[in-house]
């Protein structure tokens, strides 16, 4: 990847309150690089998040940002994309926000296929609320809300996404930011919903799934020359791998599927935002009423 824009363009002056060493720093860095490498300017991006440590990310970037209530960034992002399909819309939120309280929106987004990129900061815990087990916590994980070890099986987000019809499914590791930046860029270039689940060490509350724990297990799918990400069966097999070996990279990619907004009749004549902008630039009052009617 050749860097075109300077990633520093995306730096914000907001005080960062993540703990020292948090894996979220690497995700922030990778996202800035992915945008710079694609020559995308700050005003062309909207990052939508929910509530959680990871959801603070839009505040730490010089782009458009929207923090929704807990678990709701996906529908808000879908609406933003419908209103303005020219915008690069990125959802960035934690595993609790994405797969717990926002779990229904996650499944519906997979099958709806809006053209948005979803980066999940998956630290297998609720970080902001001080260490309760999350949907992706491994069975037996001891936390304040699971003193005897969590009882449930961990949710497998990649398998759920595949079963629900997602067209781009990838996994990255915060300890390897360069390939993560590449995956984010590829997810953004994919037409449709792109899930990038990032294994993100929470150095404060998750003392099991540390940088070293992941580093010992992760491997790059690209090293398996015969692996074909368009093969759904193969992706299903890979999505089952955990514990001993954890695959990183693009597990599944289905090309040529129409994105949700490509099929919305109301957008055939152009996006609401671009049509309104055009009217502001070139006022033709007789057009306001039909346009209003169309969208009300």
């Amino acid at each position: 990847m050749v860097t075109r824009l300077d990633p520093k363009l995306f730096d914000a002056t907001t005080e960062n309150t993540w703990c020292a060493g948090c894996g979220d720093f690497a995700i922030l860095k990778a996202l800035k690089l992915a945008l710079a490498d694609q020559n995308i300017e700050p005003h062309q991006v909207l990052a939508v998040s929910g509530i959680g440590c990871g959801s603070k990310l839009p505040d730490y970037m010089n782009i458009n940002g929207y923090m929704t209530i807990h678990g709701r960034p996906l529908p808000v992002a879908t609406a933003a994309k419908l209103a303005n399909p020219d915008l690069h819309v990125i959802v960035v939120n934690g595993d609790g926000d994405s797969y717990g309280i926002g779990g229904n929106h996650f499944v519906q987004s997979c099958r709806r296929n809006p053209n948005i990129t979803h980066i999940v900061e998956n630290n297998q815990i609720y970080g902001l609320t001080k260490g309760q087990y999350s949907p992706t916590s491994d069975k037996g994980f001891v936390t304040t809300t699971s003193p005897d070890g969590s009882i449930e099986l961990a949710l497998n987000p990649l398998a759920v996404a595949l079963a629900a019809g997602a067209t781009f499914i990838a996994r990255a590791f915060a300890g390897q930011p360069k390939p993560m930046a590449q995956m984010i860029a590829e997810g953004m270039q994919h037409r449709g919903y792109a899930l990038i689940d990032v294994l993100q060490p929470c150095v404060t509350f998750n003392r099991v799934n540390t940088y070293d724990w992941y580093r010992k297990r992760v491997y790059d799918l690209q090293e398996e020359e015969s692996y074909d990400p368009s093969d759904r069966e193969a992706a299903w097999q890979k999505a089952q791998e955990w514990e001993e070996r954890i695959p990183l990279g693009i597990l599944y990619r289905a090309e040529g599927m129409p994105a949700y907004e490509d099929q919305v009749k109301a957008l055939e004549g152009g996006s609401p935002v671009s049509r309104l902008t055009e009217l502001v630039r070139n006022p033709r009052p007789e057009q306001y009423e039909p346009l209003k009617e169309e969208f009300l």
Partner: protein
Amino acid sequence: MEYAQFLREVREDGCFVSSEETEAAVVSVLMALAQVLPGPQLRALSSRVPPEAMVYLRRTSSEPDPLFDSHLFLGWVVSSLDATGMRDKTTGGLDLTAAYSGDEAIRRMGCVFSALKRQLEPAQQRELAAALPEVVDGWFLNA
């Protein structure tokens, strides 16, 4: 130098309460170094540390990740800390585990760095520092 002696020096320098705590700091700093140092510097460092410490200087990928920065470096060390008490940064409240973990990790890292520096000639120290990410080089040189 023998590994036990190396650990003793780090422990005395950093007033660590236990040998486990000392070794956790040493191992985490070595493993973080293994993530960032290019092959030649990694091999040079390996040849100067006790054999027991060499295993932690192994890297699985051939090249270091160019985006690996001081936050990630610190992450490896913070992960090795036990509860350190005091105020935490996440909400400004009281939390017994979050604490000033970054400051404590930098302090512990400094003790390991200074023990490592004693194994290296000044020119080797400068060469190693030049290969470290921004900010980490300063932590190393000032240790």
